[in-house]
């Protein structure tokens, strides 16, 4: 055997092994997700959350919502946050140096005045210009912090510094929360007696085409446009299958920045959000886990499958590309920062399973796929027509579609948000089209993320949203 053949064999068998492992992972994710979801639903079927809503013993929670140029919708968004069902609550809006009239609108709408407030800089941040509270006792839960622009991570760190409570929930200010979202998210922190729950995440759902009135979700509709619709399927797959499965193993590495609850004490001890990464949400969870592992303290990262938070998904390829580019860079940065954990038995499941999974199947997958596709194109152009090759491609595509249909089935059997049969068939159609129309673009965006990182282009990328008001009018 010549050395060229040997290298080719190592390469091909390597990729074969990789693909088989990935396939096994998907099968395991599916089965773990079923058992975790079933346990949760059984447990939840006789839980009365009203107990927590009215109890003075409920843990106090600070809601942190960074706002940047949100003038158009900020008043309604804050009203929605203030109406959440929870007793011991403070809502902290962090105006991250908005260039528009976000702060002025808040001051006028909520009768705010500047107070003397000592901001204990437990986490280093950009300077705070002022802290505002309301004259009106109805808005006593509201605190508005005005600060110099420093990005989302910096704004969240200010929020952590200002917060007075043991737990905080970070949310994107333009997300729509269910009224009982905090009650459900607070429960995991109270029910564990053997492990300290350091964070709890919630499902984020796509709100495009849904009916939103007064900052509340009135009616769930399947997105009308193709891009948000395909992201609906993606989110179902990611949240109902993957995150539930990783929760079962206590190996969850990511809690979405759009909606998650954290133990403030641990966050401060870990040094808060890292403003030097665009993946600050994942990086924080990994750092918190690492902190607990290094101290040998039993801990858990929980996840709630109930649809509690609704967000607007990008509806143009341009914005979607920016988002996926950023997600890729965030993943790579996080993996690079914590490379010490890679197959390091000291970090237990975190080092031996979660980290390697992310490295091989989240970071490397699009690269391998991209290289493979290029190789395939060259092969097809230069070689003879190969029916066997065509059949393998078809087989691979059908496995992907099968996995998506399984995710849709899980949705139907559990929360069944899209009750119309036509909507389910539309989702199935999306599952068929996704690998051809959508997935190549996602892979390309991930490749661009890799290139941007190599070129040290590290911008957040502006996320223009259409806003729910527009959607409502469109009804």
């Amino acid at each position: 055997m010549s050395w060229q053949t040997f290298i080719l064999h190592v390469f091909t068998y390597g990729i074969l092994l990789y693909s088989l492992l990935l396939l096994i992972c998907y099968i395991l994710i599916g089965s773990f997700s079923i058992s975790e979801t079933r346990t949760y639903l059984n447990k939840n079927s006789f839980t009365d959350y009203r107990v927590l809503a009215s109890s003075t013993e409920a843990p106090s929670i600070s809601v942190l919502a960074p706002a940047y140029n949100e003038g158009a919708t900020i008043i309604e968004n804050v009203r929605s946050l203030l109406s959440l069902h929870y007793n011991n609550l403070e809502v902290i809006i962090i105006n991250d140096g908005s260039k528009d009239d976000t702060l002025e609108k808040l001051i006028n709408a909520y009768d705010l005045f500047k107070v003397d407030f000592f901001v204990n800089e437990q986490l280093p941040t950009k300077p705070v210009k002022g802290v505002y509270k309301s004259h009106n006792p109805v808005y006593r839960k509201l605190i508005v912090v005005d600060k110099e622009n420093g990005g989302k991570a910096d704004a969240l760190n200010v929020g952590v510094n200002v917060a007075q409570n043991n737990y905080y929930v970070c949310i994107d200010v333009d997300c729509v929360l269910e009224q009982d979202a905090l009650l459900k998210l607070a429960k995991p922190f109270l029910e564990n007696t053997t492990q300290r729950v350091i964070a709890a995440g919630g499902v984020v759902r796509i709100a495009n085409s849904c009916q939103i009135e007064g900052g509340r979700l009135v009616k769930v509709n399947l997105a009308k446009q193709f891009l948000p619709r395909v992201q609906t399927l993606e989110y179902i797959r990611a949240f109902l299958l993957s995150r539930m499965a990783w929760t079962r193993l206590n190996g969850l590495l990511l809690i979405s920045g759009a909606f998650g609850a954290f133990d403030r004490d641990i966050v401060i001890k870990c040094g808060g959000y890292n403003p030097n990464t665009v993946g600050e949400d994942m990086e924080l969870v990994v750092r918190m886990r690492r902190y607990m592992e290094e101290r040998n303290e039993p801990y858990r990262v929980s996840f709630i499958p109930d649809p509690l938070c609704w967000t607007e998904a990008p509806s143009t390829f341009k914005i979607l590309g920016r988002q996926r580019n950023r997600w890729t860079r965030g993943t790579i940065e996080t993996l690079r920062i914590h490379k010490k954990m890679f197959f390091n038995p000291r970090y237990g499941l975190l080092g031996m399973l979660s980290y390697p999974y992310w490295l091989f199947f989240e970071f490397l997958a699009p690269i391998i796929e991209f290289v493979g596709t290029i190789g395939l194109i060259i092969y097809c152009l230069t070689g003879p027509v190969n029916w066997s090759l065509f059949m393998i491609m078809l087989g691979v595509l059908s496995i992907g579609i099968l996995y998506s249909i399984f995710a849709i089935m899980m949705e139907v059997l559990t929360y069944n948000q899209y009750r119309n049969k036509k909507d389910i068939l539309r989702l199935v159609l999306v599952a068929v089209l996704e690998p051809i129309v959508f997935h190549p673009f996602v892979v390309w965006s991930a490749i661009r993320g890799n290139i941007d990182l190599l070129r040290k282009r590290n911008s957040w990328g502006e996320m223009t949203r259409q806003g729910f008001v527009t959607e409502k009018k469109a009804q």
Partner: protein
Amino acid sequence: MGTLFHFLPINLLAITAFLPNALIIKLHYQAIVILFIICLMIALLTYMLFYMYFKSKHEKKHVKWRIISDLLIRKAVFYDDDDEEAETLIPVTKRAEKLMRNKHFRALLTAEILSAKKNITGTSAENLIHLYQQLNLEKYALKNLKSRYWYIKAKAIQELTVMEMKEFQTLLYPFTNNHNELVRMEAQTAIVQFQGFEGLRFLDIIIYPISDWQQIKLLQQLSNVPPVYIDIDGWLKSANSSVVVFALKLARNYHRFELHDLILSCLDHPNPEVRLQAIHCLCEMYTDETSDQLISRFLKESFRHQLAMIKAMQNIGSEKDILFLLSLLDDDNHEMKLSAARALASIGKSGLTSLQDHVKSAGYPLNEILMQIKGELAA
């Protein structure tokens, strides 16, 4: 950030270009594999559609059943039993009687009765209990108690609790120490529901911890019954730390001042959660010496506990503690400084004056802390 969004092993495409011939299976086998996957897809889709179809069909049937249940419940709620001596029956239609043989209808009716019972009290609630018993629904709950599935068992206990089936409490009591968390939680709730404060006797025997969630539930339940004097000394000495924490909460909520010394002894408990709860408790039940006791243990404690002690001093501190609190203004941690300053201000004019006269009060961060505290006092 999106993770786990790479949905399919499309990467397999890559291998097809390089796969050794030995690994490429024959064309007709490949076709069989693809056909099998497609069949699986069709099977899942068909199952989904059938599921949705039957669900919507059931929902339509449930609408009809709900009307029958509602009628039955309404009859029971407004049932006026003129003859107080004899036990009369709530009229049940023949159709409802016939439907009672259907387990799905029974489940729906039970759920409706339970839901109604949770929201009403008085004679109407008693009538609902009467209806529940008249229809022998407790028989099925008792059967479910023997189920091997924890959630069916727990649900059955909850059902018997809501329907106030006190006669089965001896049956439920052993479940208060069940290995399954949900089962024992429901059983504990049941016993407290039936016996009020007396029901807390399960605290003597439980070996499993009581979660914070369960403690909140129990305290909420107890707040609905008139307080009764119970002996909680034993629980404050329990080997189960969660029982001690719960007993401390009970002592605080029901102002059991006679337990002050026993609570003080909890400050030396090996479990940090017990010590923390004891500090919270002493914050509301204190004597002139309590602050001295806290100060004497201050240096031995972790930062979290120290902070809790200083926050407690905002309630229980007096002029004799001023010197100690002033010493904390030199602490490296700003949160500690802020809490000490708040405690000083809460002592009164002398505390505030000492704070203002402190040598560092004009510099950062004390100047800002002082401004905030003055603002808080003025508000």
